């Protein structure tokens, strides 16, 4: 057993050394991939299993909720490999694809180090520990567990946090889709075509041959490919292209309307079939990308570290600390996963001994996706990268202007190169396609085209990648809207009890309306934001996501103390402290920093002063946009401040609970089942 591990360590050291020691010369992407995989295996074997066995004390003899409540439907003891697939499909989304691409403005190294370090010591630890504590509590949700272990105020704070992250996540991801589809008839056509395709699949699945998953998915996949291929003709025919060549604000309104309709119509018609498509396409595309990186072995064109580590980068504002650590959220640590780990997965776990494989291992796989996204962003020319990710306010709207500005930053690029890339992928322009998705699509198309189809197929691959990202973002939009609606109904229902009835159509319409207005407002403001939206909103998303992770880790820490396992509490305390430092610093800087590039309030004040003097500040073009910028600044400052406040509340309650747990003579934890039934007393709901 020892020898293979020694081999992994040696391979890991060699590939890390190749990445680390190659200065000035381009590094091959495959080394980065191999080094990461070795780190994953080593950390799983030596840290993940250590935490599970020693710190958490998993007990293979203990009955899991899947057996205790076995109903063949929700609670089912499930083979660990099948459950791994389920868990991974539930945690994987657009987040790990976008964050690393944006972080690449500082070079591939800082982001890669944070993805690897973050996942090993924070992200995977969080996912596994939450899965563990939820499994010991009949698969109860994060909010429920916080309420029962830390009190109602902490529970309410976590609830608000979840609602906040939900609204922001939908707005930001929808913004990514808008940015990818603006003035792109080919992409817009393909993405819009998924709606009738889903209808066809839904009707087939409902009335013609119910439950034939393979048939309906293949039908959908074929139609989808046809839509991508036919999209080229749409873009080529001016009469047709006219209808699909949409501006950002129009697309935003379409997505808001779509989100509303999709969240009130029956799920089988749109949401279910699209979930099938997006899930299988996601897995397929990721496997293809991993194969592509290994087969093609492209060289990383981006430098390991760029001059923008100083915080003057065009993609997002702020210095390496703390902003890199919130820009890459999902690939290293994602609070969202604590919801999944306390959702369906704990209800299906066969044995506690499988918790590290599914919890820790699932998150390592997610991190691997983030590494691939980082590679995707790094194999394209840095000039092209900055042309795609800087707002028009910075680089202008023609290839010549953009090439001039970007070359002046030290990334030499010619206008011809920029037009050539646009031509290759079948678009009129690639300038200011911010949001990460189009950049990754170019990276993926570059890799795929080298082993499947050459340059001629680059356009198809690019739009395939765009569709793949847009598809699961849109699935997030409608399932997220439903989640928001439920939470709003729950909160408002405490005041107006009749509003809690989720079967009432009026309630559903009002609830969906409110949630669409909430995220729709942020989305629309992001789209018309002269800074380009992603610039302002992505840090907000990252901060709230990390905030939720900090909340989940605080709960884990409190529970470790309650279990009388405080000598292992450093395992969750260290990542908690780091996340709290990052989110609170980033949050406070976003609110109060005197530099208007970073701080929302100082930015608002700068624009207010100019507005009073009737003076238009770039990148705004009119006094009207100026006042919008000011309003947005205050809204964003409020959201950032709220995120900070929630973390502070959780810390206060942790400080109250931990000494109480320490002074108790025995374990005060409320677990269900297990050999010592005397401990079990909870399960109040």
């Amino acid at each position, binding site marked *: 057993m020892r020898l293979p591990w020694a081999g992994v360590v040696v391979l890991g050291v060699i590939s890390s050394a190749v990445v680390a020691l190659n200065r000035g010369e381009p590094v091959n992407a495959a080394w980065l991939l191999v080094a990461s995989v070795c780190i994953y295996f080593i950390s799983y074997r030596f840290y993940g299993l250590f935490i599970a066995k020693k710190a958490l004390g998993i007990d293979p003899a203990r009955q899991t909720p899947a057996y205790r409540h*076995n109903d*063949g*439907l*929700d609670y*089912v003891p*499930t*083979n660990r*490999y*099948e*459950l791994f*697939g*389920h868990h991974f*499909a*539930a945690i*994987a*989304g*657009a*987040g*790990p694809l976008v964050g690393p691409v944006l972080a690449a403005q500082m070079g591939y190294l800082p982001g890669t180090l944070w993805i690897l370090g973050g996942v090993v010591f924070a992200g995977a630890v969080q996912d596994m520990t939450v899965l563990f504590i939820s499994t010991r509590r009949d*698969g*109860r*949700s994060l909010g*429920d567990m916080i309420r029962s272990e830390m009190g109602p105020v902490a529970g309410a704070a976590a609830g608000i946090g979840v609602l906040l992250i*939900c609204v922001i*996540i*939908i707005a930001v*991801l929808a913004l990514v889709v808008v940015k990818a589809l603006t003035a792109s008839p080919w992409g817009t056509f393909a993405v819009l075509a998924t709606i009738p395709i889903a209808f066809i699949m839904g009707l087939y699945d409902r009335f013609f041959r*119910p*439950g034939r*998953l*393979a048939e309906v998915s293949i039908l959908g996949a074929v139609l989808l490919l046809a839509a991508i291929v036919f999209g080229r003709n749409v873009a080529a025919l001016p009469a047709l292209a006219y209808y699909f060549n949409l501006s950002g604000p129009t697309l935003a309104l379409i997505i808001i309307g779509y989100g509303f309709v999709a969240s009130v119509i029956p*799920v*089988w018609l749109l*949401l*279910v079939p699209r*979930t*099938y498509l997006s*899930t*299988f396409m996601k*897995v397929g595309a990721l496997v293809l990308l991993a194969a592509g990186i290994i087969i093609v072995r492209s060289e990383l064109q981006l430098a390991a570290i760029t001059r923008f580590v100083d915080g003057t980068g065009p993609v997002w504002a702020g210095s390496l600390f703390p902003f890199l650590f919130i820009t890459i*959220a*999902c690939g290293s640590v*994602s609070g*969202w*996963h604590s*919801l*999944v780990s*306390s*959702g*369906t997965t704990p209800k*299906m776990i066969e044995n506690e001994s499988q918790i590290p494989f599914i919890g820790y291992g699932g998150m390592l796989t997610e991190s691997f996706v983030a590494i691939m996204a980082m590679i995707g962003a790094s194999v394209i020319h840095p000039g092209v990268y900055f042309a795609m990710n800087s707002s028009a306010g910075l680089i202008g709207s023609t290839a010549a202007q953009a090439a001039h500005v970007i070359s002046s930053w030290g990334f030499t690029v010619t206008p011809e190169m920029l037009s050539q890339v646009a031509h290759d992928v079948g678009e009129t322009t690639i300038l200011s396609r911010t949001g990460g998705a189009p950049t990754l699509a170019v990276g993926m198309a570059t890799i795929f085209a080298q082993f499947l189809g050459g340059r001629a197929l680059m356009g198809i691959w690019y739009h395939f990648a765009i569709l793949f990202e847009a598809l699961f973002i849109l*699935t*997030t939009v409608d*399932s*997220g809207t*439903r*989640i928001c609606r439920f939470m709003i109904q*729950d909160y408002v229902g405490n005041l107006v009890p009749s509003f809690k009835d*989720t079967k009432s159509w009026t309630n559903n319409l009002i609830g969906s309306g409110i949630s669409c207005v909430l995220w729709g407002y942020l989305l629309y403001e992001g789209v018309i934001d002269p800074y380009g939206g992603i610039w302002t909103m992505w840090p907000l998303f990252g901060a709230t996501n990390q905030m939720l992770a900090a909340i989940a880790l605080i709960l884990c820490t409190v529970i470790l103390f309650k279990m009388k396992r405080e000598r292992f509490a450093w395992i969750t305390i260290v990542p908690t402290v780091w996340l709290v430092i990052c989110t609170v610093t980033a949050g406070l800087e976003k609110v109060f920093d005197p530099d208007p590039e970073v701080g929302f309030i100082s930015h608002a004040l700068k624009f207010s002063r100019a507005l009073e003097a009737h003076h238009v500040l770039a990148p705004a073009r009119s006094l009207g946009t100026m006042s919008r910028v000011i309003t947005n600044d205050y809204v964003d400052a409020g959201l950032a401040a709220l995120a900070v406040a929630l973390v502070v509340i959780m810390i206060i309650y942790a400080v109250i609970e931990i000494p109480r747990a320490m002074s108790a003579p025995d374990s005060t934890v409320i677990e269900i089942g297990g050999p010592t039934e005397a401990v079990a007393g909870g399960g109040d*709901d």
Partner: protein
Amino acid sequence: MIEGLQRFCRCAARTAHLMVGIPDYETYVRHRRVTHPEEPIMTYEEFYREVQKRRYTMEKGQFRGGCC
């Protein structure tokens, strides 16, 4: 060899179903036969609709699906 391949394919198919929230029907049938032999068992179509409905019904502690 062929048996192993078949087993792998069945496992892959079950994984694909579970990824989109559909648990294994055979397991369900077996479970009902053992635990509630006197009660009726849903047909595959009924089972399929039921699990779909459950997946998207929002109730307390019924959080499903991911975003990121």
